[in-house]
């Protein structure tokens, strides 16, 4: 396709992708925006003031979401690194089966499992606690993290580690100065996915949080059922921001094809 036709088409597609953000932005600043007004008659900062007030529980939701997402990401990285290494560079019987277990967890709906886990967490006293929510958030994040890291490890040359070891580096030095820098793009992309999955998760939190754990998606869901469009829009925009910042920070790693290829070759 010629570029004279290509670029306008791309700009049109990008425009369509951005379209749902436009009413969000306008609603968050509008004081009553009735049909058929194309532009609100009156503007207000009232919804944004509400976002920052304690009554809306947005601040609380932000902190709870943040703690859960960071803990989930950290723990997934901790178990995903060794598993990704094994899947990426070693051959062993049952490898395909183990990969299938991880893949199945991505594909199969968590609903039934959630109802089972909820039953157990209530008896363990973990229902409605941050710990319980973090535990179930690990179910979707570990498979993504492991598959992304496995794909980066597949392109990893273990010879560098052997060399560093033979030159007298400690196992920790080898990991932090040789291995980690080489697999960094995978660590960043895997962490981005894990963070976003956990930050955006509604259903898992709903079932295990028992109304006590009030993450940002829970705040938004409650607001939506209340029908306050202005505040819903402002909260919606607020809940995009951390993910967007993370995306911008990892934009270089996202251009690493090996890290992403992991999801295209499962």
């Amino acid at each position, binding site marked *: 396709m010629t570029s004279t036709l290509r670029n306008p088409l791309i700009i049109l597609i990008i425009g369509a992708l951005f379209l749902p953000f436009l009413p969000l932005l306008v609603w968050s600043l509008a004081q009553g925006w009735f049909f058929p007004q194309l532009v609100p008659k009156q503007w207000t900062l009232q919804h944004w003031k509400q976002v920052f007030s304690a009554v809306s529980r947005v601040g609380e939701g932000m902190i709870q979401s943040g703690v859960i997402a960071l803990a989930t990401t950290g723990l997934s990285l901790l178990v995903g690194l060794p598993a990704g290494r094994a899947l990426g560079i070693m051959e062993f019987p049952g490898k395909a089966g183990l990969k299938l277990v991880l893949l199945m967890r991505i594909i199969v709906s968590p609903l039934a499992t959630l109802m089972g886990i909820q*039953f157990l967490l209530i008896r363990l006293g973990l229902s409605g606690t941050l710990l319980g929510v973090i535990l*179930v958030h690990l179910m979707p994040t570990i498979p993504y993290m492991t598959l992304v890291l496995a794909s980066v490890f597949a392109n990893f040359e273990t010879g560098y580690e052997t060399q560093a070891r033979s030159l007298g580096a400690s196992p920790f030095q080898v990991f932090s100065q040789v291995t980690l820098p080489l697999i960094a793009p995978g660590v960043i992309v895997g962490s981005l996915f894990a963070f976003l999955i956990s930050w955006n998760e509604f259903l898992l939190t709903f079932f295990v949080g028992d109304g006590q754990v009030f993450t940002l998606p829970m705040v938004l869901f409650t607001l939506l059922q209340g029908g306050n469009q202005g505040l819903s829009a402002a909260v919606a925009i607020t809940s995009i921001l951390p993910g967007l910042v993370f995306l911008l920070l990892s934009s270089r790693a996202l251009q690493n094809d090996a890290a992403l290829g992991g999801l295209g070759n*499962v």
Partner: protein
Amino acid sequence: MARGNGLVREGRLSIKWQAYLLMLPAVSLIVVLFGGGLLLALLQSLGVIGLLSQGRPTLAAYQAALDNPEFLRSLALSLYIATIATGLSTILSVGLALLLRTAGRWASFACQITLPIPHLVGVVGMLLLLSPSGMLSRILYVLGWIQSDQDFPLLVNDAANLGVLLNFLWKEIPFMTLIFLAILRGIDPAYEMQARALGASPWRCFWDVTLPMLKSGILSSSLIVFGFIFGSFEVPFLLGSTRPRTLPVLVYRAFTDTDLSRRPEAVALGLILSVISILISVAYLRITSDSRSRPSSQLSL
């Protein structure tokens, strides 16, 4: 090939056991959480454990779930939404990836905009954009195309679930495009140049050279997307038709019913949902196992 020195001192363990040891934390967490949850769900659905349990296994919950007149229609609706949304996303993503392949990095990055957006936020945006008093309706009114909000086609909570489909396309196309672009960048352009130089038309070159190399990526990402949409709850709950409802919404309704005796039915429905998605993915992996193994070895991303 892989020696993995330094992980286990002196290599006393064989590589096989090293690998199992490395996989252990991740796999056991998944198996305990997911498998354990499924097992507890099974016991609940059979009435062996639970609030109103009689202690004896019974299939009453399954009977109730399958007797629900909405069940089959819900299953059909879930399959319809997941199939259409996945199919359209896949085709459009291949097109978009080919389009972006030769464009600048700015374009690829801008097309990833919906990737970090929570589904719930997408739902709010779609509601405010597509509802009868939404922004699109206002634009058409100002242009004089419609006379009132009644004339605007119903796109949210509509019987055809167009709003749900649009929301999933909006969210999944950037995800799939990202994966396809990564694969395309790994393909040596010489293959395509050669095909063109030997006289293949652009279409022929795409069909016989580019597409086969994308195949394994298409098959795996479409399976991930299908599974996700089939089991997703909040989008059809808020944007979808009110009757019939998708299977996950049906499960949610039964689970949150004030009548606690419906709990086992909710769990049974959830298990049926899981079994269906497992069966679909196994069938899919079976059917496509041939074409998956060949090109991936070439690309080995």
